[in-house]
């Protein structure tokens, strides 16, 4: 593997073609292959089941043509023994194979595809390079249908009783993204056939509404059979709509939204490691710790713990890391190696001696731009001492070459003409450090993304442009000077704001990882909303657990709990914050390196359905309280009605509160189990018992709970008739009015953010339109807040269930601990700095998006008070807006000074 440079020659010469699993069998690869173009490691592998030499003893063409001798047919399978402290299993999931659903004819009709196949058809790296065509005749489809719940919520053809959680969202996403992949102004018709639409995540509901407005048709009907169109092209769907009309419609393509099953080999893993699986072969976990399997020290994360989407998987991955870190906290740092670098040579007094690397990037650059011409050109430029053309400048062997040449030619600057700095600049910076040079002495010219990739039709012009780009890069590099990364000392304490479940779990995790933390809570009691809940959806009792956790928090030597305390002011930056908290009249200063915001949310108090006017109409929490206090006795009443989505998914609050369907199911089941003759009715819009919570929905139906759907335009009416509480609605299937006499009416009301304005202002966190605090990136950083050093967990981020809050809280604590584990933090060096030309006019302060600049008063040598700008390097991100705004050259950015930029422009114009 060390020798392979991924040139691809072996695959070119290999005679054996195999179905490409990465493209879901829609295209072919060779028996020697890389998984996909950006695969890590980017090394070719031989498929032992298909390689002609390994199966029949003939060929070995790859070995003949490999330029580095990287092929080794004598390689043997090696068994490696590892001693580790903990194991995290993340084997993923297996997409459901719809071949077993013979009525959908997946095996027979070419234009019936699975959702994963559709993703490959859409992908730029897929079999058709992102140009969407249908498999039968490679024509662009104009009418596409999605069928939801294929292999999920089905106990007839498979045993997947659960909901796969993600399919509704991915189908909508695929529908909205499809238009971009078709040429011109194609009249596109898209229909999604569903049972319930489950858009229960953050911003999901808005996306759903948006899709409807953009013309995606949502049909509440489940087709029975798919038939091929004429000549086996296209698909005919027969379905019955909600009005009872039988409709036959022909589509160009049908996408089956397949579910997420337990991965192949789940049973083997469970056998080998000795942990339990649940009835669906997912790893069995408790709601109070969704990453701990039944075996201590072995954790599970991702889809193997149950179907989930990417943000949840990423969150849980951090949770599992935190758990493992807790377990092994005594051994932290014992096996890691600290990388050492040679001493940095001081080049400040030297004349610039520039080395230039022109990258071919395989054929990415070299098939458009004439790299040989560029090499000759670069040799003519001032200060250039060495030029080389390499195939892949980012490969390991090129790094060794660069270090060698730096030493040989005494170079003190490096210019790499290749891809975008966003991809590999850190790599080249690292290489410079290994060569003993300051890492900021490298400059990149993007002759790929900004050149060869977009000028494929005009190689001559592309080459000329590349010459200009290299000229400019060399001009800038000449003026590059060594920069130092800012080092700040880290205050290794944490502040947790909010003492509900999320705050408690965060604090305990941090403490058990070895860090001190202070937990502040606004009210006089810890526990927050959890006191209002009875059990989790897995029937675990919450109060005993909550009591135990509160006990641990209050008695933990590393945690200080401050009740009746509110946050008043925050200053500072990551690693070094200062806060003022107030308790009664007392104000206290607290220093901390990282913070976790867990301020929670509250239950909405409805303004409809006679709430507040009749004592029998209650919110979910109130109903639960009355059940607990035995004021409501299920044995003594006739009927209970639940209304879902009260205050959610409407104009005022166009979001889904995620947990209410599950809570209602759980209560309905309890009521029915106490009294089977009690009639329970649930009025809903979509039932969103996602994941394995679907089991509750099925159980409720089996116990005889009646579900009646309503729409936003036809909401139920609640009236008093002779003192009786009646609920009026219409049955959507029979189309007759329904009148339900209710002893109690329970409203599943929305979760609304608490008055988070203060907290988010104090930390400069951003919120979404609905008032929930935003994460830094919905998929890649789901527990980081938008301010560095601040994390968030629980309801304040978005409504979620208790197990999800616990997972997020632990993940947040785990990630916060990464900051706290360091004594010092290094920040980037591309920061603004104030020059002597500054007169404190303050124009830059207005434009700085990171509030890193402020006007200060300084005293001059002769005593006059002058205004000047002060730049906080910890907050500054080096965007350059200040430098562009300042009319006096009073504030500049390291590495992008006015001189450097001017040099680039001058060299470009000099012709």
């Amino acid at each position, binding site marked *: 593997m060390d020798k392979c440079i991924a040139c691809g020659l072996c695959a070119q010469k290999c005679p054996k073609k195999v179905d490409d699993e990465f493209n879901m069998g829609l295209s072919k690869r060779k028996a020697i292959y890389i998984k996909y173009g950006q695969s890590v490691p980017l090394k070719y592998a031989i498929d032992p089941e298909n390689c002609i030499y390994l199966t029949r003893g003939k060929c070995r063409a790859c070995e003949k043509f490999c330029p580095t001798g990287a092929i080794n047919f004598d390689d043997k399978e090696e068994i490696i023994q590892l001693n580790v402290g903990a194991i995290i299993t993340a084997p993923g999931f297996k997409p459901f194979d719809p071949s077993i659903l013979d009525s959908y004819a997946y095996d027979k009709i070419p234009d019936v595809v699975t959702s994963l196949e559709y993703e490959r058809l859409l992908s730029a790296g897929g079999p058709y390079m992102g140009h969407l065509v249908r498999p039968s005749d490679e024509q662009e489809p104009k009418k596409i249908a999605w069928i939801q719940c294929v292999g999920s919520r089905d106990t007839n053809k498979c045993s997947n009783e659960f909901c796969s959680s993600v399919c509704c969202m991915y189908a909508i996403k695929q529908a909205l993204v499809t238009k971009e992949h078709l040429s011109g102004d194609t009249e596109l018709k898209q229909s999604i056939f569903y049972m319930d639409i489950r858009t229960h995540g953050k911003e999901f509901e808005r996306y759903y509404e948006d899709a409807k407005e953009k013309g995606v048709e949502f049909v509440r009907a489940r087709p029975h059979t798919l038939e091929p169109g004429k000549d086996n092209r296209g698909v005919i769907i027969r379905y019955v709509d*909600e009005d009872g009309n039988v409709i036959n419609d022909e589509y160009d393509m049908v996408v089956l939204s397949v579910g997420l099953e337990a991965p192949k080999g789940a049973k083997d893993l469970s056998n080998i490691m000795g942990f339990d699986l649940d009835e669906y072969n997912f790893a069995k976990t408790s709601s109070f710790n969704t990453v701990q399997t039944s075996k201590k020290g072995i954790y599970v994360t991702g889809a193997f713990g149950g179907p989930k989407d990417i943000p949840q998987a990423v969150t849980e991955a951090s949770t599992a890391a935190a758990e493992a870190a807790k377990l092994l906290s005594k051994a932290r740092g014992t096996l890691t190696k600290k990388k050492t670098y040679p001493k940095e040579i001081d080049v400040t007094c030297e004349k610039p001696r520039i080395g230039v690397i022109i990258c071919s990037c395989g054929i990415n650059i070299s098939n458009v731009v004439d790299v040989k011409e560029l090499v000759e050109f670069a040799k003519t430029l001032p200060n250039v001492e060495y030029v080389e053309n390499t195939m892949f400048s980012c490969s390991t062997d090129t790094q060794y070459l660069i270090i060698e040449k730096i030493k040989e030619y005494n170079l003190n600057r490096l210019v790499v003409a290749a891809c975008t700095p966003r991809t590999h600049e850190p790599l080249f910076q690292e290489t410079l450090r290994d060569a003993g040079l300051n890492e900021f002495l490298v400059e990149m010219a993007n002759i790929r993304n900004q050149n060869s990739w977009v000028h494929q039709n005009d190689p001559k012009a592309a080459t000329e442009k590349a010459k200009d780009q290299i000229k400019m890069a060399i001009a800038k590099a000449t003026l590059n000077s060594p920069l130092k990364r800012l080092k700040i000392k880290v205050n290794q304490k944490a502040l947790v704001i909010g003492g509900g479940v999320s705050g408690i779990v965060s604090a305990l995790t941090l403490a058990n990882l070895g860090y001190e933390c202070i937990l502040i809570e606004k009210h006089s009691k810890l526990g927050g909303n959890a006191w209002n809940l009875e059990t989790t959806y897995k029937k675990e009792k919450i109060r005993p657990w909550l009591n135990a956790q509160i006990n641990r928090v209050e008695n933990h030597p590393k945690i200080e709990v401050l009740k009746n305390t509110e946050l008043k002011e925050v200053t500072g930056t990551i690693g070094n914050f200062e806060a003022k908290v107030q308790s009664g009249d007392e104000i206290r200063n607290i220093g901390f390196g990282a913070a976790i915001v867990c301020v929670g949310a509250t239950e909405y108090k409805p303004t409809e359905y006679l709430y507040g006017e009749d004592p029998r109409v209650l919110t979910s929490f109130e109903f639960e309280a009355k059940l607990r206090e035995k004021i409501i006795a299920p044995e003594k009443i006739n009927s209970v009605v639940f209304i879902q989505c009260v205050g959610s998914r409407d104009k005022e609050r166009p979001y889904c509160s995620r947990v209410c369907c599950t809570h209602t199911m759980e209560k309905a089941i309890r009521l029915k189990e106490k009294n089977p003759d009690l009639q329970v009715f649930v009025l809903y819009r979509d039932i969103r018992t996602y994941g394995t919570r679907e089991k509750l929905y099925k159980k409720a139906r089996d116990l005889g709970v009646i579900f009646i759907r309503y729409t936003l335009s036809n909401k139920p009416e609640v009236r008093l008739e002779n003192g009786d509480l009646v609920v009026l609605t219409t049955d959507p299937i029979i189309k007759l009015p329904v009148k339900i006499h209710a002893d109690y009416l329970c409203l599943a009301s929305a979760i609304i953010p608490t008055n988070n304005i203060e907290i988010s202002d104090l930390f400069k966190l951003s919120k979404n339109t609905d008032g929930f605090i935003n994460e830094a990136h919905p998929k890649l950083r789901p527990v980081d807040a938008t301010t560095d050093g601040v994390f968030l967990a629980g309801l304040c981020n978005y409504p979620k269930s208790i197990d999800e809050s616990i997972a997020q809280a632990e993940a947040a604590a785990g990630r916060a601990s990464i900051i706290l584990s360091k004594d010092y933090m290094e920040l980037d060096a591309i920061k603004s700095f104030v020059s002597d030309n500054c007169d404190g006019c303050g124009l830059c302060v207005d434009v700085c998006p990171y509030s890193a600049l402020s006007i200060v008063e300084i005293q001059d040598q002769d005593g006059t008070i002058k205004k000047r700008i002060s730049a906080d390097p910890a907050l500054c991100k080096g965007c350059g807006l200040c430098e562009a705004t300042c009319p006096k050259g009073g504030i500049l950015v390291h590495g992008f000074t006015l001189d450097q930029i001017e040099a680039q422009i001058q060299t470009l114009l000099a012709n």
Partner: protein
Amino acid sequence: MAQEIIELGTQKKSFFKDKVMELLPDGGNLNACLTCGACASGCPASGLEDMDPRKFLRLAALGMDDIITSTPWVWMCSMCQRCIYVCPMKINIPQLVYYAREAWPRENRPTGILKSCDIALKNDTCSAMGASEEDFQFVVEDVLEEYRASQPEFAEMKAPVNQKGATFFLNQNSREPVTEPDEMVPLWKILHMVGADWTYGTKGWAAENYCMFLADDKSWEHIVRTKAKAVEDLGCKVWLNTE
């Protein structure tokens, strides 16, 4: 349907659906419906009488027993089982339809089916067209003779009647011997060519079972027992049921 209001939530009553659930294994999953419509999408009778399986089950779920037990739609169901085949919850709609049929007063059930059942009950032949033992035997022997004569390659073909101890007992729908006797012959030819040891019986020879369609369990049972006895009396091992 007349514009009525469905009233729910008062004292719990046992619906028709509940009674059927007690009779089926696993309750036929009759409570598990989530109104997805897969059944209706595949039902050949969807749309007739403004009804489809989803609507039917929904009416049952909401206790509209009057409609369930009086809609003629239940007689349009062919018991093809396409509904339960794709139902994600495997709900036994055909059985619900069957018991709804049974709820009809016998004399109100579709005349054609009713009459056929009654005729079948009158005779040990079980023929719904009233064909007698002698009639059947005559027709078989007559047709056989004709074909033996006109098609020399089948000169040795047999169509035994009441052959004791034969391996196979073949039954026959009444329509063929009564109105289209030639249609019986192709099957005889096949059995002849494979050398099967088979026979008709004069008792219990009729294959149709209108009493089953009528949802008359007692009569159904009688018909089946009569036929089974006929097979056993001849000592045959295998009953070839052509329905």
